[in-house]
C-alpha cells in the first residue's frame, strides 16, 4: 500500500502558484514545497508541472534544481519525475559510477512490472540517446554483464499460470548449477532473465521443497564474488520485494552515516506502491518504526520530505 497522504481536492494552478511563491525572493520556502509536492501522486505532479510551465514559461524541475540543494534536492528531483523517467535516471546514475551499482540495475529490472521496465527503457532512450542495455553493456564486463544485460532486456510474459513440470525441471537445473558451483552457468541466467515471475517463484518454491533450504541460502558465500551477490539480489527481488526493500533500508540506516542514496531511492520509488508494507516489515524486524529511524538519522528539509512521503507530516 502507498504511504503518501493526498488531499481530496487538488488545484494544480493553486499548487503551481504556491510553488512559485516558495521559490521567489530571498531563499526558498522548503516547507511549502514539501507540503505541496510531498502530498501529490504521480499523475498530479505531472499536472502541476504542466500548469507551472503554462503559467510561468519555465520547467518546474529546472527551477527546483536551482533553488534546492543537497540531499533534499536529489530526493525532490527524483520524486517529481515520472516513475519511468525516474527509473531511467536512477539506472543511469548507477551505471555511471566508477564502480557501477549493480544492485540498483537489478532492483529496477526485477521489481518493476514488464510494462514498467519497458517504460523505463523508453524513457532512458529519450533522455540519454542510448539504449539502457547498450550502456549497461558498455560499463560492465564478464559474467555480471551477461546477467545485467539479460535482466534489463527482458520483456516477461505477465501471466499467472504456472507449469509445475517446468518448475520441477528448472529447479533441478538450478540445483545442479549450484552444486557444481557453476553459478554463472548459462542456464541460471536464462531462467532468471526469461521466465515470467510467477514461474520463477514456482521454481524457487520447488527448489526449497526439494532441497530443504531456500535457494538464496545456498548462494551465500564469498561476498567478494560480485556475480554471486548479484544473483542473490535478483533472487531476493523476485522472491519477496518488500523484504528486499526493508533490508536495503535497514542497511542504509545502519551504516556509519546514512546511505542517503539508498534511503531516498527506496522511499521515493515505493511511496506510491508498497511502502506501507515495507514500513511494517521494518518495524517488525527492527523494533523501531521506520519514521522514527529516519527522523533520527536524517536532518533538515531532507528529513521533513522523507517523513512527508512516509505519510508522517
Amino acid at each position, binding site marked *: 500500500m502507498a504511504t503518501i497522504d493526498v488531499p481530496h481536492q487538488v488545484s494544480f494552478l493553486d499548487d503551481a502558484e504556491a510553488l512559485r511563491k516558495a521559490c521567489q525572493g530571498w531563499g526558498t520556502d522548503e516547507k511549502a514545497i514539501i507540503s505541496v509536492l510531498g502530498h501529490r501522486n504521480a499523475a498530479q505532479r505531472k499536472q502541476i508541472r504542466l500548469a507551472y510551465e503554462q503559467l510561468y514559461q519555465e520547467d518546474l524541475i529546472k527551477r527546483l534544481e536551482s533553488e534546492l540543494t543537497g540531499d533534499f534536492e536529489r530526493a525532490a528531483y527524483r520524486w517529481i519525475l515520472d516513475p519511468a523517467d525516474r527509473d531511467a535516471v536512477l539506472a543511469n546514475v548507477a551505471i555511471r559510477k566508477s564502480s557501477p551499482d549493480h544492485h540498483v540495475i537489478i532492483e529496477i529490472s526485477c521489481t518493476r512490472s514488464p510494462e514498467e521496465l519497458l517504460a523505463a*527503457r523508453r524513457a532512458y532512450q529519450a533522455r540519454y540517446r*542510448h539504449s539502457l*542495455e547498450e550502456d549497461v*553493456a558498455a560499463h560492465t564486463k564478464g559474467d555480471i554483464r*551477461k546477467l545485467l544485460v539479460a535482466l534489463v532486456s*527482458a520483456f516477461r510474459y505477465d*501471466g499467472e499460470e504456472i507449469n509445475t513440470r517446468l518448475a520441477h525441471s528448472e529447479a533441478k537445473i538450478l540445483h545442479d548449477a549450484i552444486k557444481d558451483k557453476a553459478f554463472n552457468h*548459462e542456464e541460471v541466467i536464462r531462467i532468471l532473465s*526469461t521466465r515470467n515471475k510467477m514461474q520463477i517463484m514456482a521454481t524457487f518454491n520447488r527448489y526449497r521443497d526439494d532441497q530443504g533450504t531456500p535457494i538464496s541460502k545456498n548462494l551465500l558465500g564469498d561476498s567478494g564474488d560480485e556475480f554471486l551477490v548479484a544473483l542473490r539480489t535478483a533472487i531476493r527481488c523476485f522472491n519477496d520485494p518488500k523484504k528486499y526493500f526493508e533490508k536495503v533500508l535497514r542497511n542504509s540506516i545502519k551504516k556509519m552515516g546514512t546511505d542517503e542514496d539508498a534511503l531516498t531511492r527506496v522511499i521515493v520509488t515505493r511511496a506510491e506502491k508498497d511502502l506501507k508494507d515495507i514500513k511494517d516489515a521494518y518495524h517488525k524486524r527492527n523494533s523501531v518504526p521506520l519514521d522514527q529511524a529516519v527522523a533520527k538519522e536524517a536532518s533538515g528539509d531532507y528529513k521533513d520530505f522523507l517523513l512527508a512521503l512516509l505519510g508522517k507530516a
Partner: protein
Amino acid sequence: MALSNDLQALDRAFSGIGVDEKSLISIVANSDDEHKQFLRKGCSKLFTEDEYGFERLNQSNMKDLKLEFNRFRDAVMFSLSHPWERDARWIAKAIKKGPKHYNIIVEIACTRSSDELLGARKAYHSLFDHSIEEDLAAYVRGSERKLLVALVSAYRYDNEKQKVNEDVAKSEAEILSNAIKNADKRRPIEDEDTIMILATRSKPHLKEVYKHYNKICDKSLTKDLEAEGILKDTVECLCTPETYFTRVLDAALSVNADEESKRALTRVIVTQKEALVKQNNYVATKIQGIVRGLCEDFILGSLAGGETNNALK
C-alpha cells in the same frame, strides 16, 4: 495436337512459384474424362502407372503443388494481418522448425524498428503465453541461442539523427575484427563482446562500425562472416538490409529454390513493400516467367500499391 499443347500448358502452369490458375481452368475444367486420362498418362511429374490399372497421383509432388496453390492464400493472410501478429507467428514457427529457419528470427529482430519488434513481442505474449526470449532460450540448443535471445530482446535507440561516437565505433570494429581473426580458437558467434555489440548498439552506430571495419580490414564485415551462418545474416540485416533482402529475393527466384527460400518471397513482398516500391521495376522484371497466376498478380499489385487506397479516402 491439342493434347500435347495441353500437356505443355499443364506443365507450365505447375512450374515456378504459384500456379497459373487461369490456364488450369481452361485446361482442366474444360476436359472430359477421356481427355483427363490422356493428361494423366502424359504427365509423369504428377502421375505414375499403378499396377492395378490406373494412373496414381504422385503424393510427394502433390504436396509440393499444394504449397504452390497455398502461396496466394498465405500472401493475402500475411498481408492482411497485423504486423505484430505475423512477425510473432513467423518467429514461433521458426523456433519450432529449427536451426535452418533461425535466419527468419534474425531477419525480424534486426530489420524491424524497435517499436515494431516490441509489438511482435507483445503479440507473442498474447498468442503463446510465453515471451519470445523464454521460448528461444528453452528450445534453441546450440551456439545460436545467446545471439538470438539477445537480438530479440533489444530495444535499440532508433533515431537516425543520432550522433555516433566515432571512437567507440572504431574500437568496436577492432573488437569484431579480433573476434573474427580468432575464429579458429572460438567461433565469433560465441564471443560475448561480439554479441553485445551487435545486440545492444543502435543501427546508425553499427553502420559506422561496419564502415570502420571496412577501413581497418580492407574487406567488408559481411564478407568476413561468410562462414558464420546467422551471424552474417545479423550483420547484413542490421547494416545493409537492402543487400540481405536482395539476396533473399534472388534465392527465392532461383531455379533450385527450396520451399523455405520460396516462403521468403512472400515474407519480403509483404513486409518490405516500401523499400521494394522504391526499386521501381526491379522486382517486376525479376519475377517474370517465374512467378505465376494470382501470386504474380498479388506481387505486381502490391508494388503498384497505395494509389487506389488513397483514392477512396
